[in-house]
């Protein structure tokens, strides 16, 4: 009972702050039209309310977060559906399919000889909708088969070219950079960041690292003996990679929070 009471008091306080903020923001509006000022005052206050509601999730789940979450889900689902309609249907399909529809939507009609093909996805799309009819719902698998086939076909060659072939050829690196003989190397050995030793060391690490990393991914060979050692080094290399990427990203993540707090203190409270 008491927690319900506390929740009511909290809601009342939030409502009060919301109202005060709305009034203050409307009063300080820049526009000549009173309606625009009141509207913008509301919208800014609402944006602040949503921001704080989401942050409140860090403490624990609560009605404010639930409200913001539900609203976000509804609004954004509608957003992307509208976007899909205007950009894909009107932007890509209509100009290829029909002149009169193109004129209706004010998009330039594309004269093309092969616009019969544009009906292929329409057919598969309609087949997909048979999912709604229990009797022939199994037909929708045809559309899924079309999509999965396309994905598999496109990705097979794409990954072969961009990831496999290019990553392998990038690994053809010399293990002795600027080599002028062992004597020269020993005489000039230093751990300076731009020294020859470090350049050579880097290439050795890359070479050994790629090899051992690949060994780690071997599925059909037991990771024992020399193979096991290599696989273990492979895991270590992967761990360095993960640690490094994690560490490098941290700062960028904080800048996102800086943006939100600046919004609260600057755009809303005007204390910056």
């Amino acid at each position, binding site marked *: 009972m008491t927690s319900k009471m506390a929740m009511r008091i909290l809601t009342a306080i939030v409502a009060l702050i919301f109202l005060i903020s709305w009034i203050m923001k409307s009063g300080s509006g820049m526009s000549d039209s009173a309606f625009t000022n009141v509207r913008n005052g509301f919208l800014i206050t609402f944006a602040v309310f949503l921001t704080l509601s989401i942050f409140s999730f860090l403490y624990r789940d609560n009605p404010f977060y639930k409200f913001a979450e539900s609203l976000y889900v509804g609004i954004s689902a509608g957003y992307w559906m509208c976007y899909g309609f205007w950009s894909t249907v009107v932007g890509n399909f209509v100009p290829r399919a029909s002149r009169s529809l193109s004129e209706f939507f004010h998009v330039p009609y594309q004269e093309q000889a092969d616009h019969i093909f544009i009906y292929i996805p329409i057919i598969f799309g309609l087949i997909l909708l048979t999912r709604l009819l229990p009797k022939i719902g199994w037909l929708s698998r045809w559309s899924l088969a079309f999509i999965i086939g396309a994905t598999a076909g496109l990705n097979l060659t794409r990954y072969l070219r961009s990831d496999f072939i290019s990553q392998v050829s990038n690994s053809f690196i010399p293990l002795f950079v600027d080599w002028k003989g062992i004597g020269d190397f020993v005489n000039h050995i230093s751990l300076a960041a731009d020294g020859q030793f470090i350049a050579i060391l880097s290439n050795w690490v890359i070479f050994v690292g790629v090899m051992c990393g690949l060994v780690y991914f071997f599925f059909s060979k037991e990771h024992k003996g020399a193979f096991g050692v290599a696989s273990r080094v492979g895991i270590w290399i992967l761990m360095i*990679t993960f640690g490094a990427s994690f560490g490098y990203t941290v700062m960028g993540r904080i800048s996102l929070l800086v943006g939100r707090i600046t919004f609260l203190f600057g755009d809303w409270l005007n204390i910056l």
Partner: protein
Amino acid sequence: MKRQIPMLILSAVGTLLVVSVFIPSARHWQEDASLYFDIIAVFAFFLGGGNLIRVHTEKVNRKSAGWIYSVVTLLGFGIMLVAGLFKIGNPGGIAGDISQTGSYFQLLFQYVMSPLNSTMYALLAFYVASASYRAFRAKNTEATILLVAAFVILLGRTALGVLLTNWIPAQLSVLQIPNLAIWIMNAPNLAGQRAIMIGISLGVISMSLRLLLGIERSYLGGDN
């Protein structure tokens, strides 16, 4: 029948797209396939949107716990659809750009969706901190390596890293933390990324083949 035809469609489409890479005059099939995918995905919106409406109306009808939030979702969905599909308030009318300033669609995007979006994204700052606090502990060799690499990179990105190791002479300058951080990004990190990418490409190839050959077909449903 119910199983053979989809199998046939899948293999035919996939094989055609693999072959099209090598034939100059068929190369546009690749872009066509992506376009077709987008159009089919729009049809799927009916299923997704329908599901969203059904799930939430049911909650409201049954007055199940938290039904009021389902009302919020449905309202938001409806308002956005109406505002976007009819381009309400759009200065350019039906021909205007959907995200034109002044349209209700854009207004809702700007004051509702965009703050929600950036705030959700900003939660990452907190989660990155709690994950670092909890996960970066020297429990075993692997975890220690992870920790040390992360720590060097983190230090290298603050003034602390410079100040701590400034005294190291130029002869050993790679040991200065900022240099060490860059070296880690450059050599071991690069090697790890490369091994992962080569592995992924082979994984994709073998999985695509399993799909095209009809060995992997759990997604195709049963025979009834």
